[in-house]
């Protein structure tokens, strides 16, 4: 069941009505059953994988809390990490490693033949695996008490608004909210619906129309010129942003209706003035996960420049690999790591030359935004292309533009959509709009009306699946 479907609207109406009709003591059960139903709408059997993760991590966390021996704590943590990572490896990465080993063996004339697994990737596997892992790690670190209520813990891993594409929540932020008594609040419900509507607008009006052009060009990339490939890459940059942030906004909006606050996952990332700032605004829940559980334990930036560069590249290679078992994602991650290392070096050079200014002028800020956006854009080519060779070919041809852009009338809607989203992002960030809706009732009323009719008139029907579902 996807958010941009009438089936989801019907599901949401039923669940919301029951949520506020039922007493507090039964609401966790309702949300858990609804989450199971929501997940089983895709491939029912995959619920068993979730069940394994939930059972292992539930008992691992309690065992960690119950023992005082650091060695035993470490042992239970290891059991949790190894078991959930094994599931992730089998379903997501086995075939990738197998294929690459086979290619390496063939090159070295070795005898290696293990058949590929013909299994589908469960939707959102990387998301709920990471969410569950963060819980066990936090319990191990003593930052979170182990959840004794099995149903509530299962709900923490399975909560349907963020089950398949995040935000990847932390237990300290989400778990306690399931215990809180929520009263019906019409204003909160309307605020949540406005946020969900904005997410839906970004998905069906902007992302899905951009997808039409991107797919046309990228699916037959060798037959299109550099100019068309460049336009398609711009389209993809906004497509993936509107698609993913649209999903996150719907998730946050739907959750807000129940009085459960989910973390902000995007914060106008294309207005970032540097790559390091970009990563504090793009997929915040994942970048902060890597920061807390990989980057800082590796030493973060309180180490030598060489070691720090190593830490950065490890984190971004892992981040790329998290997205998918394909070299394209690894190169994408490596590029971002390289950007950050170059940024660090550049900062050091400027500092030594005494050229760092606290306040940059508007023009310099604008140029920095443009430069950052275009660096991100180059990396998106690798993210979108079907393989690394094609990606390099696309970059090469983009750098030598030739001929006219392949024009599709949908480009008009794409350009208008991207413009509306960028301008809105700037305003939303400036006013902290979604957290201050009570200050702007008329604007919220008018924009909600406009979005509703925008979706009705410009929404792409039967548009593409959310991109991040595959991760």
């Amino acid at each position: 069941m996807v958010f941009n479907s009438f089936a989801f609207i019907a599901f949401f109406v039923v669940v919301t009505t029951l949520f506020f009709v039922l007493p507090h003591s039964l609401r966790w059960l309702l949300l858990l059953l609804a989450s199971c139903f929501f997940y089983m709408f895709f491939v029912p059997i995959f619920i068993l994988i979730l069940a394994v993760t939930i059972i292992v991590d539930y008992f691992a966390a309690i065992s960690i809390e119950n023992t005082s021996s650091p060695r035993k704590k470490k042992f239970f943590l290891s059991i949790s990490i190894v078991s959930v990572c094994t599931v992730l490896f089998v379903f997501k990465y086995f075939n990738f490693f197998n294929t690459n080993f086979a290619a390496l063996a063939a090159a070295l004339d070795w005898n290696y033949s293990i058949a590929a697994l013909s299994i589908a990737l469960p939707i959102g596997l990387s998301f709920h695996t990471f969410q569950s892992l963060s819980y066990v790690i936090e319990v191990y670190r003593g930052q979170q008490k182990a959840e004794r209520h099995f149903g509530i813990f299962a709900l923490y891993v399975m909560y349907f608004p963020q089950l398949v594409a995040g935000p990847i929540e932390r237990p300290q932020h989400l778990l306690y909210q399931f215990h809180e008594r929520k009263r019906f609040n019409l204003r909160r419900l309307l605020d949540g619906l406005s946020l969900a509507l904005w997410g839906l607008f970004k998905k069906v009006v902007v992302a899905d129309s951009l997808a039409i052009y991107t797919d046309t060009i990228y699916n037959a990339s060798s037959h299109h010129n550099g100019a068309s490939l460049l336009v398609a890459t711009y389209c993809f940059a906004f497509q993936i942003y509107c698609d993913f942030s649209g999903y996150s906004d719907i998730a946050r909006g739907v959750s807000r209706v129940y009085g459960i606050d989910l973390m902000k996952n995007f914060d106008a990332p294309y207005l970032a003035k540097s790559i390091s700032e970009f990563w504090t605004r793009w997929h915040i829940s994942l970048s902060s996960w890597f920061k807390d559980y990989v980057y800082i334990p590796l030493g973060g930036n309180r180490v030598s420049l060489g070691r720090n560069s190593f830490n950065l590249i490890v984190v971004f290679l892992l981040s790329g690999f998290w997205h998918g078992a394909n070299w394209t994602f690894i190169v994408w991650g490596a590029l971002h790591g390289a950007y950050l290392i170059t940024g660090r070096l550049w900062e050091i050079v400027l500092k030594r030359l005494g050229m760092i200014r606290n306040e940059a002028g508007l023009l310099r800020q604008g140029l920095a935004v443009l430069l950052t956006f275009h660096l991100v854009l180059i990396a998106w080519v690798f993210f979108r292309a079907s393989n690394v060779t094609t990606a390099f070919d696309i970059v090469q041809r983009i750098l030598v533009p030739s001929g006219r852009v392949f024009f599709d009338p949908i480009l008009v809607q794409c350009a208008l959509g991207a413009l509306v989203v960028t301008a809105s992002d700037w305003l939303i960030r400036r006013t902290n709009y979604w957290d201050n809706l009570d200050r702007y009732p008329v604007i919220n009323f008018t924009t909600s009306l406009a979005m509703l009719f925008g979706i009705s008139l410009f929404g792409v029907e039967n548009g593409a699946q959310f991109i991040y579902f595959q991760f």
Partner: protein
Amino acid sequence: MKRVIVFALSKPVKWVIVFALLVVLLDLGLGLVLGRIYRQSFTGDRFGLLNYALTQEPQILVLGSSRAQYQIMPSVLTKELGLTAYNAGLKGQDFLYSVMLYDLWKRRHPPPKVLVLTIDIESLIPRETEINTAHIVAPYLDESQLVREILYSGGPFRRFENLSSTYRFNGTVLSLAKHAFNRPPPSYDGFLVGAGTLDTARETGVMNALDQDRTAAEMAHVPFSPQKLAYLRALAEETARNGTRFFLVHTPIFRQDEAAHEAWVKKLQATLATMPGVKFVDLCSTTHPKLFTGPELYFNLNHLNAEGAEILTVLLAEEIKRRP
């Protein structure tokens, strides 16, 4: 009393009521305005041509997909048969669109003398995407029971979606802005020229790169949709009743899968045997290998160029002459 109730409502409740009222009013108002503009648009490559076809009253009416639009020349039919002709084929559309268009058309005009409907290997099999693309007919929902029946058959929520007057114009607004109140030149007969000659390497490359849903071999063995067969039967019975000669025409594609074609024709002829009055005309590389095998007469893999279209239309005219 009513006044008291309204004032007792909390502020958010009032907002909700006003919002709901505005949604209904704006939907009706916008739908009305867009509907007016829509019906006065006669150009473009989508609904404008649907509207324009409804204003035409030819003796030979050609219906179908781009295979009709690019390949059947009304001027040649007129020259060969001495009857006026109009090509109402439309890119991206197929059988269901043609059935709806004919239903709307016959409400405005007397029956044509000849009805030509192009058909290919995927026209009669069930296809979800076909109803989605046929959504351009939605502004005529209130006019025809058949249009409602077809568009609502696309899913359990279609009826609900189309309750909205503005939703019926989904995806057409920018095109409306461009084509509002435009008319094609008086000589326009619906035929679209496919210029140039097929570059086999490029076109085959693009087609291979784009992940095609189903191959001809697969489609040939998919059972026909009962819904589509019912519409075809109704059309056959109606044309027989009105004295309209009904031709179902298969047109050529480059590198046709001969085995798939043979299986499909067998299946189609078995079906048509129960529908008296429908004349099936097969004009492709199987029936005319010398003409339609090489790339010279095509401008892309699925469509003939102007020269090929002229040859095909002459062949069709001969068939119409030959089969009373």
